[in-house]
């Protein structure tokens, strides 16, 4: 099914009896049962005010179209979603897709100012709005961000945009072991350098990104190189191509892939147990790891892991209260269980 208006969509959901699978470009979906409800018919940027840093788009608008419209005005999505071909902005929102700049600029959910969505009973709901600060009522925007179509079909997203920084450089350190990799990143992130990306490439190499006005980037690059002296000579590279590599790691992954979020202080122990190709992002708070199908990470308290390519797995299991609240919310927003289980 492919509705071409929100009302159409609501009618289809009301009329549906079996499970539905809400999709955009299908580039971030996980396998699930149900008839496909393709939202790409609900497309188009409905408002873009660069001077207010605000863009509103219907869910089926291709991510590439959003990024192009922004680039034409010297702006971008600060949360840096990976540009999967065919991906829609609704899919980005529904999976809270966020790249390396999440470290400093926040996730997709932090840039989401408002949503419209249709619940499992066909009710059209609006939450949030289009302004930068809004505490009017509950923040269902956060609830919908990353909900993977389990609470409602997102039909429209209002986003905070950001200026494209005039200058970008990458500082690169090579030949560090795991312990020194983490120590170097922590040194960079604990000082006044305004680092907007920090990770380690799959082929090795610690990369740190600085962005901003030319003079500012130059002086911070100098200060940061000096602070990193104990870890070797930091090569300063113009641009930030290495961060595209980090951002797109999951897209290029071979075989089963784990996504592990953890405290940076836990990263060294995690890196030691990884069985294959991997990358580190968010200053050590995110690790992508390719691993054979029977491998599971041993997690320290608070850390979380999910297998995002291959047989779905989530560690640890949600606790009983979280499970009860999650089930309760799904029962409220989708009492008939129309939206197939993708969470």
């Amino acid at each position, binding site marked *: 099914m492919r509705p071409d208006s929100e009302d159409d969509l609501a009618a289809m959901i009301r009329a549906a009896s079996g499970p539905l699978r809400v999709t955009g470009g299908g580039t971030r979906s996980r396998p699930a049962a149900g008839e496909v409800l393709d939202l790409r018919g609900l497309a188009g940027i409905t408002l873009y*005010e660069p*001077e*207010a*840093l605000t863009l509103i788009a219907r869910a089926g608008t291709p991510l590439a179209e959003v990024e192009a419209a922004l680039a034409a005005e010297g702006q971008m999505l600060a949360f840096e979603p990976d540009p999967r071909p065919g991906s829609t902005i609704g899919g980005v929102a529904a999976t*809270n897709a966020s790249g390396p700049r*999440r470290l400093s600029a926040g*996730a997709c*959910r*932090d840039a989401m100012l408002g949503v419209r969505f249709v*619940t499992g009973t066909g*009710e*059209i709901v*609006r939450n949030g709005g*289009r*302004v*930068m*600060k*809004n*505490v*009017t*009522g*509950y*923040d*269902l*925007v*956060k*609830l919908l961000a*990353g909900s993977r179509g389990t609470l409602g079909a997102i039909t429209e997203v209002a986003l905070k945009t950001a*200026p494209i920084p*005039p200058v970008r450089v990458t500082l690169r350190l090579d030949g560090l072991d795991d312990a020194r990799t983490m120590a170097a990143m922590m040194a960079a*992130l*604990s000082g*006044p350098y*305004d680092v907007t990306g920090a990770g380690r490439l799959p082929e090795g190499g610690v990369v740190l990104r600085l962005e*901003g*006005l030319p*003079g*500012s980037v130059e*002086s911070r690059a100098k*200060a940061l190189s000096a602070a990193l002296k104990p870890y070797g000579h930091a090569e300063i590279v113009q641009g930030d191509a290495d961060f595209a590599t980090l951002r797109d790691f999951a897209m290029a992954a071979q075989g089963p892939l784990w996504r592990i*979020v953890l*405290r*940076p*202080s836990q990263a060294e122990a995690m890196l030691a147990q990884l069985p294959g190709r991997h990358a580190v992002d*968010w200053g050590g708070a995110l690790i992508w790891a390719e691993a054979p199908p029977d491998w599971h990470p041993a997690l320290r308290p608070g850390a*979380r892991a999910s297998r995002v390519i291959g047989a779905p797995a*989530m560690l*640890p*299991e*949600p*606790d009983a*209260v*979280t499970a009860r*609240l*999650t089930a*309760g*919310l799904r029962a*409220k*927003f989708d009492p008939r269980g129309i939206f197939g289980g993708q*969470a």
Partner: protein
Amino acid sequence: MQMPAPDAGVIARRDAIAARLSAALADPAAVITDPTETRAYECDALSAYRCPPLMVVLPSTTREVSAVLRICHEENVPVVPRGAGTSLAGGSMPTSDAVIIGLARMNAILEISAEDRLVRVQTGRTNLSVTGAVEGQGFFYAPDPSSQLACAIGGNIAMNSGGAHCLKYGVTTNNLLGATVVLMDGSVVELGGPMGEGAGLDLLGVICGSEGQLGIVTEATLRILPKPAGARPVLVAFDSPVTAGACVAAIIRSGILPVAIEFMDRPCIAATEDFCGAGYPDCEALLIIEVEGTAPEIEEQLTLIREIAEGFALLEFRESGSDEESRRIWLGRKSAFGAMGVISDYMCLDGTVPVSRLPDTLAGIGDLAAKAGLRVANVFHAGDGNMHPLILYDANKPGDLERCEALGAEILRLCVEVGGCLTGEHGVGVEKRELMGSQYAPADLEAQMAVKDVFDPGWLLNAAKVFPLAVSEARRGARRGQDAA
């Protein structure tokens, strides 16, 4: 202010309830029923509305909060969580049948991790003292409400509070990584995790800003940031508020992101000059713009800001050359609310509008005020469009408060009309509860109330807030029906 009629059955059982609660706490004195003492909890900073609570409980641990909530749940007693009581929306105002659970005794720092750039605190801790605990290691906690000396992290989370510097660093929800939450039935849950990510749905994101209606937050993990190398404000004076508003939009459009852009108009400037003599220029409106970095970085940004501002008929561009001059530039802004309080009673609004609509909204507010025959002063966070029109009135003049409230409602509706919202950082509370229908359709409110149904099925927790009373009545009424049975 209309509040639901108190539950006479609960009030009649007061002593028995107090005895049960005392027995559950290590310190029996943590349950306060003496009316002279509970009076201190009868209102928050929206002090026009007051009501003494049934009693006040001051637990010391998450376990005690859990025990207290479990008993209140069993006894079907309404509960109002309270941090420092600085809400401007009546969020922590009780009803006479409600138990206030005050978090003031829970103010410990539980963990500081420089490596992970986070701090874990009990939520009764004040906002400023969180930064106090980490600044020795070169960090700070970014959200900085003007009330930061007094307000508690728990209240900040419940209201999703902002501050002058959130233009760059975001509001509470963008700096909150995790929370320990006690639900109304006493169950305890850990939400969030590394980078704020929890298991599945973003429940932490919903708790933040839920105004104490979904659970009591007892512990919080907060993101801390390295202190910037330096910061410097400039003061830019204009001959009209509309021009100042247009300049804000131009700065944002240019791609420079200052940490703060604050706005004051003539009535506000005049009041603060009389109050603290900050030495502000004689002008219709001014902006205080703060940028951060090393000295050359600051210069670079200020040069660009000056170029932009010069396109807007500026009267003066006053750069700070020393810490003392910086302090004086901020002095008037920081004293603005106090200064207005000296010259008049006032009501503080908190609507947000798109930055692009600042100029015409300011003009619109002026028109509405003139029509109502009341004076309005403006002082606000301009960079993100979060306006704080202060309506001046005379509490002793019959009818003036009502005229002021009517004008306030009109101004907030104007904010919504131009694409904004009723409240940018203070919350709905009781104050804006009845206006919710102007921003949200019935289905929108229904969806929000459905969330409360899941977290607090009996609608015992701070239930008479946020939603228009008529809209939440059936749900709140169900509790009472149950009570009678």
